[in-house]
């Protein structure tokens, strides 16, 4: 098994097409921008040929192998790259297959290592291997100690060409021994419109349409229908128009959120492999399958953004070391449960951790000083905004309505402050540090206390006056830091001592840290 292996030959078909699709917009723009048969057409044809060639070369230049101690990858034609990762530092194996990959039954395997640094260079990416090979690689890499048999399975046998692997894809990844922790339920889709993920899509599409119009030198004002429509609009009253735009926006955002939810989470399953790892599988068109070693798990985090909280929905995210920092909603951890009913999310959390869910524990409130600080900060911000608009009004730079709107901010700020205080809390229970904060984006994190690798205790001037401190537990997983904001100093020290006995104590006894004030 120490021989160099190649990617699946079906990549020869996929890579060039993928490359062309990715480069399609600039290529077409260059192709059509030149009038007649100018140089633009030749340049774009040459560029397209280059893209196809690069895609083909990728297969010829890429090789990988798994030795007894490490995974190695050689790639690149002009810039050769050779990456080697020790096997015991492999922390996650991520299998992705787009529609095209799925049609040809291949998949992209990403092997994640434990670095928290940004950048792609520490990631081993095999683009692409056959689906069977992907599955074999995963068990080979993750369950080495527990299942050495996996390495001897036929799919991982290098004497056999990967294409001969006839395992049907998408065959279920799970062996019967896997335990189902959570499975997609179409009823969850009702939470989709409350995730706001569609809003970004609407924005992106609007931007793209305007960009295209601009690129194509089309002035919307010159198109007859648009102009007559604009005429109708200009006769409508402003509030009505604003309302109409809002309604359309909400409808569009909901539609896109729902579509996005279905695309991302259709067929979601969270399973536990007896070899000691969690598997997440999801995706309607592009299927994504992530494996995560349980010994890398440091806790879980429940996220309840305001809108989702209004309908008692929540997401569950893993706090694990060595996970890739993802973009957008997955930032700072791997998704264990897409937006779903809160009770179900708690149940999944309990199953994942194998205890009663620490995030349901009763939390200690942070007291009147913390409450004052919540109100003070929220109201101060609202008052500053209001003051700016009032001054502008007095100077005559603005009409009346902006500061009326700004005045609305004050009661809103009060409500938010109240909610922020009610959300605030922490406790140490059964080996977990639990902390919750935030209102608009409320998060409850349960961090295993043996995963805490340091403390930060921060006090601004104003916090010192109020006798408060922000306690931060640093860890190797997730965001790297989990905060307990504005907790009374005494309680912060108690909490740190409860969670990790003996770490902070030696520094308190001989020379107590400067008392607040």
């Amino acid at each position, binding site marked *: 098994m120490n021989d160099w292996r190649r990617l699946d030959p079906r990549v020869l078909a996929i890579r060039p097409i993928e490359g062309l699709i990715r480069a399609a917009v600039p290529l077409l723009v260059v192709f059509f921008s030149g009038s007649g048969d100018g140089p633009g057409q030749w340049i774009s044809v040459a560029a397209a040929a280059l893209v196809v060639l690069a895609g083909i070369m990728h297969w010829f230049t890429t090789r990988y192998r798994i030795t007894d101690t490490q995974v190695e990858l050689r790639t690149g034609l002009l810039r050769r790259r050779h990456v080697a990762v020790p096997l015991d530092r492999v922390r996650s194996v991520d299998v992705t297959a787009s529609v095209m990959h799925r049609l040809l039954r291949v998949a992209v395997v990403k092997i994640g290592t434990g670095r928290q640094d940004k950048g792609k260079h520490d990631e081993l990416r095999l683009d692409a291997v056959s689906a069977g090979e992907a599955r074999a690689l995963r068990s080979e890499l993750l369950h080495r100690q527990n299942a050495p048999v996996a390495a001897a399975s036929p799919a991982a046998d290098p004497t056999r060409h990967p294409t001969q692997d006839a395992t049907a894809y998408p065959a279920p990844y799970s062996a019967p021994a896997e335990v189902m922790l959570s499975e997609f339920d179409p009823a969850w889709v009702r939470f989709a419109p409350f995730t706001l993920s569609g809003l970004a899509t609407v924005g992106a599409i609007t931007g793209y349409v305007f960009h295209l119009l601009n690129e194509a030198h089309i002035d919307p004002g010159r198109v007859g229908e648009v102009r007559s429509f604009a005429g109708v609009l200009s006769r409508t009253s402003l509030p009505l128009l604003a309302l109409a735009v809002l309604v359309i926006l909400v409808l569009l955002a909901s539609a896109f959120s729902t579509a996005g939810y279905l695309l991302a989470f259709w067929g979601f399953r969270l399973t536990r492999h007896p070899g000691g790892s969690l598997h997440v599988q999801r995706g309607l068109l592009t299927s994504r399958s992530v494996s995560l070693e349980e010994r890398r798990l440091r806790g879980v985090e429940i996220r309840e953004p305001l809108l989702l909280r209004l309908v008692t929905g929540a997401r569950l995210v893993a706090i694990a070391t060595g996970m890739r920092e993802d973009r957008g909603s997955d930032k700072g951890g791997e998704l264990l449960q897409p937006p779903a009913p809160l009770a179900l999310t708690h149940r999944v959390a309990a199953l994942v951790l194998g205890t009663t869910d620490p995030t349901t524990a009763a939390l200690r409130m942070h007291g009147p000083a913390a409450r004052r600080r919540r109100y003070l900060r929220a109201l101060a911000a609202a008052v500053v905004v209001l003051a700016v608009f009032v001054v502008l009004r007095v100077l005559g730079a603005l009409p009346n309505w902006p500061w009326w709107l700004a005045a609305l901010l004050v009661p809103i700020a009060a409500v938010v402050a109240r909610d922020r205080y009610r959300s605030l809390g922490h406790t140490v229970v059964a080996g977990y540090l639990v902390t919750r904060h935030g209102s608009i984006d409320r998060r409850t994190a349960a961090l295993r206390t043996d995963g805490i690798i340091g403390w*930060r205790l921060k*006090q601004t001037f104003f916090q010192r006056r109020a006798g408060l401190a922000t306690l*931060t537990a640093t860890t*190797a997983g997730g*965001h*790297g830091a989990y905060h307990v904001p504005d907790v009374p100093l005494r309680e912060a020290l108690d909490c740190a001592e409860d969670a990790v006995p003996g*770490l902070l104590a030696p520094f308190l006894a001989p*020379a107590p840290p400067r008392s607040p004030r």
Partner: protein
Amino acid sequence: MTYWAVRAGAGWLVVLVPLVVIIVVAPDHPTWLVVATVVEAVVGALHVLVMPRWRFRVHRWEVTDQALYTQSGWFTVERRVAPISRIQTVDTERGPLEQLFGLTKVTITTASAAGPLKIHGLDAVTAARLADELTTGTGGDGT
């Protein structure tokens, strides 16, 4: 202490000098520019006078068999603790200004992306000894 004063002073000079030059060179400078410059000079002077003393009183560090403790800041005070067993790397670093004063900065990182401990303004011997002490006798993965 002097090092912090010099560093802060240099920062303020970068802002102030161009302003003064503009006022001197351009005859038709607006009045508010003069006011702003004077205010800045006063704030800058206060900062240079007060901050280093305050900071010096706050900054401290301590190391035991099990853990390392640092306390830093002035307006915002931050204390950090890390167990010795979780320490990943120890960097000692000297900038040009620090070399002038014979000082060394020691940065101790853990496996967390959010928690390097920094000890400013150690003399070279202490820094080297600390780095030695911290890098010997750690084992395991540290995550």
